[in-house]
């Protein structure tokens, strides 16, 4: 997100406005850089390398602080969290990949440090559980609805087709006026 500010965003959004197609050809509009008018000296960033720092913090947010239990090492100021944060930073700076750093910590502290549990035999239920629940729910829903439909079909009243025809007649009679009133048909 290089240097985006709200007004730049809005300016761009306005540009996009009506003529989406035309602007699409022009490619993304870059933010205008506004030169600061103030004279005071610029404070140095805490991190020598902001990009590295962003990576380190992103990774730190996914690692659990062991002492504080329900905070990530990015949020916690416990001494161990600070140490581990420094480890993450140093190792990334030394050119290791994020996976390397994660492996390093898992070797020492176990899967417990990962807020995103690895996919393996014991976590299959965790990762597939929601999908299984969803399928189960959808299956149950389909079953219920089919039974409902059978009940509807078994009713001696009008068939669905008849009703649709009746409604079409009613609607054509009422012109284009919306006959549907969402809450009032109780």
């Amino acid at each position: 997100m290089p240097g985006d500010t709200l007004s730049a965003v809005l300016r761009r959004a306005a540009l996009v406005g009506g003529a989406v197609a035309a602007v699409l050809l022009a490619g993304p509009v870059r933010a205008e850089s506004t030169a600061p008018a103030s004279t005071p000296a610029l404070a140095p960033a805490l991190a020598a390398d902001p990009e590295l720092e962003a990576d380190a913090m992103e990774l730190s947010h996914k690692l659990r602080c062991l002492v504080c239990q329900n905070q990530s090492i990015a949020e916690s100021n416990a001494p161990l969290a600070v140490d581990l944060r420094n480890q993450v930073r140093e190792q990334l700076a030394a050119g290791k990949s994020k996976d390397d750093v994660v492996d390093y910590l898992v070797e020492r502290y176990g899967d417990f440090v990962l807020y995103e549990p690895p996919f393996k035999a014991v976590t299959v239920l965790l990762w597939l559980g929601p999908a299984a629940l969803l399928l189960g729910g959808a299956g149950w829903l389909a079953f219920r609805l089919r039974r409902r439909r059978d009940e509807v079909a078994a009713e001696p009243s009008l068939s669905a087709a008849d009703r649709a025809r009746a409604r079409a007649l009613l609607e054509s009679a009422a012109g284009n006026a919306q006959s549907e009133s969402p809450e009032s048909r109780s």
Partner: protein
Amino acid sequence: MKAKFLVPLLLFFGLAGFLAFGLTLNPREVPSPLIDKPAPDFTLARLDEPAQTFSLKEMQGEVWLLNVWASWCVACREEHPLLVRMAEQKIVPVVGLNYKEVRGDGAINARGMAIEAETDMAIERARRWLRDHGNPYLLSVLDIDGRVGIDFGVYGVPETFLIDRSGRIRYKHIGPITPDALQNVLIPKIEELRRAG
């Protein structure tokens, strides 16, 4: 009564069973993945002779304990008399890993302190503490910045690692060693490892 209406009840009872079992567990204890793995190697300055270093090789062929401690650690004080008694009875050699002696102490602002000054301060504090409370250790080493602690997966002090003759970590005790844990867990394990050769 249709069986499907019993499903929520059965699910709930299963859940309640787990919750009941969960009450007996300690959520603060995190098992170490290092068990049965070679102890991470390190070379650190000795507390008694800071010019000399100590490394794992020196304990090769022994069954021994690595005990993580610091003078600022309140629970260590609780555990210490037991360590002293163990030393008197020569149960097992214990090496002390003095962990972040200065910067781990919340009462001291060690930020910006030179490493030499910090090391001197650590030696002074640790030695005084051992003088006051007794020294049960074969020797202690100084982990000033806690780096070796991270290698061992230390997340609180005290912690104690049981290491076998081949240098593998066999057991990790988290928190102060209690007389009960010593008698019923540590000593049997030590004897077993010794028998195993």
